[in-house]
């Protein structure tokens, strides 16, 4: 890793997560002298590849690459810096009665598969796909734009509001209503308008609750469905896939692109405080007391960490500080990374089906998913959790020794705060056992194949990655925290209340997932403020 020089920089970016690096790339490309500081001895934030067991590479936080904006991939030439995304071909939900629903990327195969469960649903799927596509088309152009402040009379905000109005108007009357409803509905109600088969609904509903402290019956989750769907629709480029070499490949490519533009990165350099002089950000102090000066400071951390932990409240408006305290960041997800001695057998999946290479699930009804959420509300992990399970080593042989496999298991729901006291080693093991038992119900040889399992609770995610409560989106994706409300009404334009200071993490619009849009938008705001075209 290149060690950055000292002295005054144009910009310091706190945190080398994917958004910090995306912002850094754009700033460096515009000719700024940019230093990125990372607390951990390795870069990447939650997009990392770790070797935690002999011969295996784990994507031990984020695990699929679907949302990374194609504009960013292209502009920063990430493929040129080694990023390779390998699409996968669908997935499967296994049912408690031994049946299954497989999803294929081949449309005809998929229709036949859905028709096996319900002929009507196979018809409805066309309508569903069309409507989702419409919503995706509507929302995509908004991702890489700075949200306006609807209370402002500044020309830029008014122009942006007009743009939004026009963009909305172009949908036409009926689709405008559909959009209003889509944004405010629960995923369960939304899916009820299309499908009758429980298994079809359960499979699709999974992506509406990943990472959120809501259930499929909570209003607003239809939108979260879209948040995870956007990658799916991109077509050939940026489709759902694995980054070759694990998710760390994304941030490694970003770092390489950044360094090629002249930027520097220091890892193992935790920031203790952001310095403010005369109402302007002036640099940072590291844990070791070292002071680094910069005209611009950009935080990739979530807003709670940024403003409550590494800034002095006296440098901020008191009302802003209390709003930051009220920003909802809730830990609801866990993760298991498992080294396997061979490919486990799942009797429900037909022999030779490509779906074993995609995402595997075991939640076969909306009710099961909703009950999993009820457990979270009571401060315990789901007794029958929703799991999103993948074995990318089938497609990417660099992740595990020949014949062996790496399994990534994302788990919803797992609370940050347990009703019966703090997390400890015994509870972590018990949580892991719940997940492993859940999988073993569908795979008789699974337990015997386990060589090593890394169990990660929200508490672990917080401590290792620095995400408050281990929330993978740096803040709930609810109405009160989206678009011009994200993260704080009046501060949705990436600018902190202190001049020269910016936010670029997933706490800002359009939110989390390995998307890179907040980083790119923040860089745009900074360059505009500097009078440079983006």
């Amino acid at each position: 890793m290149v060690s950055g020089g000292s002295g005054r920089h144009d910009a310091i970016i706190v945190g080398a997560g994917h958004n910090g690096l995306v912002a850094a790339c754009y700033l460096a490309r515009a000719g700024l002298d940019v230093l990125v500081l990372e607390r951990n001895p390795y870069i990447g934030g939650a997009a990392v590849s770790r070797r935690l067991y002999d011969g295996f590479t784990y994507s031990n936080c984020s695990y699929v690459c679907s949302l990374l904006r194609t504009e960013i991939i292209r502009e920063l030439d990430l493929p040129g810096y080694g990023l390779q995304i390998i699409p996968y071909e669908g997935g499967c939900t296994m049912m408690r009665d031994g049946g299954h629903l497989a999803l294929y990327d081949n449309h005809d195969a998929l229709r036949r598969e859905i028709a096996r469960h319900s002929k009507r649903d196979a018809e409805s799927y066309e309508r569903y796909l069309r409507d989702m596509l419409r919503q995706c088309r509507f929302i995509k152009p908004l991702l890489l734009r700075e949200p306006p402040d609807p209370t402002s009379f500044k020309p830029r905000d008014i122009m942006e509001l007009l743009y939004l109005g026009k963009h909305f108007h172009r949908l036409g009357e009926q689709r405008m209503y559909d959009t209003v409803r889509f944004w405010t509905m629960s995923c369960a109600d939304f899916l009820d308008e299309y499908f009758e088969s429980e298994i079809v609904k359960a499979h699709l509903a999974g992506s509406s609750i990943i990472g959120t402290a809501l259930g499929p019956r909570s209003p607003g989750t239809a939108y979260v469905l879209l948040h995870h769907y956007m990658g799916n629709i991109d077509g050939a480029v940026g489709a759902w896939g694995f980054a070759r070499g694990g998710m760390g490949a994304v941030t490694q490519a970003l770092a390489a692109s950044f360094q090629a533009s002249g930027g520097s990165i220091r890892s193992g350099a935790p920031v203790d405080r952001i310095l403010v002089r005369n109402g302007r950000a002036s640099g940072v102090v590291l844990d070791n007391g070292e002071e680094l000066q910069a005209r611009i400071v950009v935080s990739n951390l979530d807003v709670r960490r940024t403003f409550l932990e590494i800034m002095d409240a006296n440098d901020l408006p008191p009302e802003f500080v209390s709003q930051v305290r009220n920003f909802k960041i809730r830990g609801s997800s866990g993760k298991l990374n498992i080294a396997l001695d061979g490919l486990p057998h799942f009797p429900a999946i037909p022999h030779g089906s490509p779906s074993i290479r995609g995402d595997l699930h075991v939640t076969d009804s909306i009710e099961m998913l909703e009950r999993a959420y009820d457990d979270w509300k009571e401060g315990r992990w789901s007794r029958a959790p929703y799991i999103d399970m993948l074995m990318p080593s089938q497609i990417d042989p660099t992740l595990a020794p020949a014949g062996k496999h790496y399994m990534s298991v994302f788990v919803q729901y797992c609370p940050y705060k347990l009703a019966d006291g703090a997390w400890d080693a015994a509870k972590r093991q018990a949580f892991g056992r719940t997940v492993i038992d859940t999988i073993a119900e569908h795979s008789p040889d699974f337990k015997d194949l386990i060589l090593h399992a890394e169990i990660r609770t929200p508490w672990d995610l917080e401590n290792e990655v620095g995400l408050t409560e281990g929330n993978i989106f740096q803040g709930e994706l609810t109405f009160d925290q989206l678009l011009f409300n994200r993260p704080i009404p009046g501060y949705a334009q990436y600018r902190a209340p202190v001049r020269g200071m910016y936010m670029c993490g997933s706490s800002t619009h359009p939110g989390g997932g390995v998307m890179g849009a907040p980083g790119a938008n923040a860089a745009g705001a900074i360059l505009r403020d500097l009078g440079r075209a983006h």
Partner: protein
Amino acid sequence: MTRACTGAPSYDCIVIGGGHNGLVCAAYLARSGRSVLVLEAASQVGGAAITREFAPGFKVSACAHLLHLMPGSLIRDLDLEARGLRLAATHMPSTAIAPDSPPLPIDARDAALLAARSAADAAALPAYRARLRRLAEALYPVLDTAPPRLGTDSWQDRSAWLRIGWRIRRLGRRDMRELLRIGGMCVQDLLDEHFETPLLKGALGFDAVLGTSAGPRSPGSVFPLLYRMAAEVQGGSALAQPVGGLGALSDSLARAALAAGAAIRTGATVERIMVRDDRAAGVILTDGEQISAANVISNADPKTTFLQLLGGEYLDTGFVRRIAHLRARGVTAKLHLALNRLPQFTGLAPDALVGRLLLAPSLDYVERAFNHAKYGEFSPAPIVEITVPTVNDASLAPAGRHVLSAVVQYAPYELAGGWQHERARFAELVIDALERCAPGLRHSVEALELLSPPDIEREFRISGGHWHHAELALDQFFIVRPVPGAAQYCTPIGGLYLCGAGSHPGGGVMGIAGRNAARALMREAA
């Protein structure tokens, strides 16, 4: 069945259903000089706002039991006071009760008791109420007008949107930001930001989920609270109880309609809406009688109106699908108790019984109660809004006796096991919950009646037994209530209008839907 209809229509307007909205609509239409006929299936008008005997000598407001949302302008317009509307109580206080905690008044004016529990909450409550009130006031004009359409070129729609925008903008930057933030928020988050006392938060959250299939953690649950406050702000009497119960309100509305020249027929059940040349042409009653009219206005709920009375064959499939998917399954039950003495709630100040008592000890309690409704079970520990109307109005029961009227949640329409078998068990369970707060209550019960959502469906002819005719939630509100294509009170069928609670702005004995529908019809005709 013949659909032929000849000659000139007998009436300008037929209103199907003599609920409060139907009567309001009829009164306004008749005042404009139109000939109006109201057809009510029951033997008395009022729909879900009626007073009836549930045990010998004991009378109760059978469904809705409080009047607080009807705008003062409507009451004045129709001169309801001159037509017999008297209020037995206004500005009724609300008190939170719990089995294991002394009662707590939750109105801002009784801050002293709250201060003893939490000084911080007592300090925060007035500011919280004042702010919500400011936001609610800005929203009121939204309730009072027909929702403008989106994406049209009509100047009326555009100016309506500008007016709404201006109204919100006039709140000022801080309130506007707060409105845009909390408008879609869950009420638990809002209350957690302001307060610490579980009993206070439970009771304040209660009003947000009352009548809806939502819990305090459901996003969007702040909105019904704002909506409720917006209407209350315009009512002027806050929570009120008419002398003679809600039925007296309906009677005064009927008199207003009659005085304006409308005709009302009770015991006249509409079987079908007649359609000629793609226009509503009148109705056919169950006894076969045909009555022709230029316009038909339905006070019935949207599912009944479109799927039963009209028939899907006149509508395009997309519209029928929307109506079929309209969420309209009630989760609210009503319990009536005939008591041989005044109930004694532990620790309750004697004058608190003039108001309502809220049994919702904490937000977690409410959320847990809601959990069961999601799976077709009733809440084993329900939330209850209790009134003892006989305290304010002795005419409702024999001398010395009392009536307890309670709204109970959650009681899902589709109950696993069926209401036929479970009704008695649920009633017992609610009485047990009340008994814990009012020891001895059980022994004073002389008679009881529990109305489950299917009972409400049957008695008041509301499909799904939902008090609001359709779930009151952001995806079924304003421009999309009940569904796109029927949100401006007119429907895809010319001459057919909606005026019930299924239309904007919803139910709650508000009357605004009826008035807005009448205005929409008059505008169309103009």
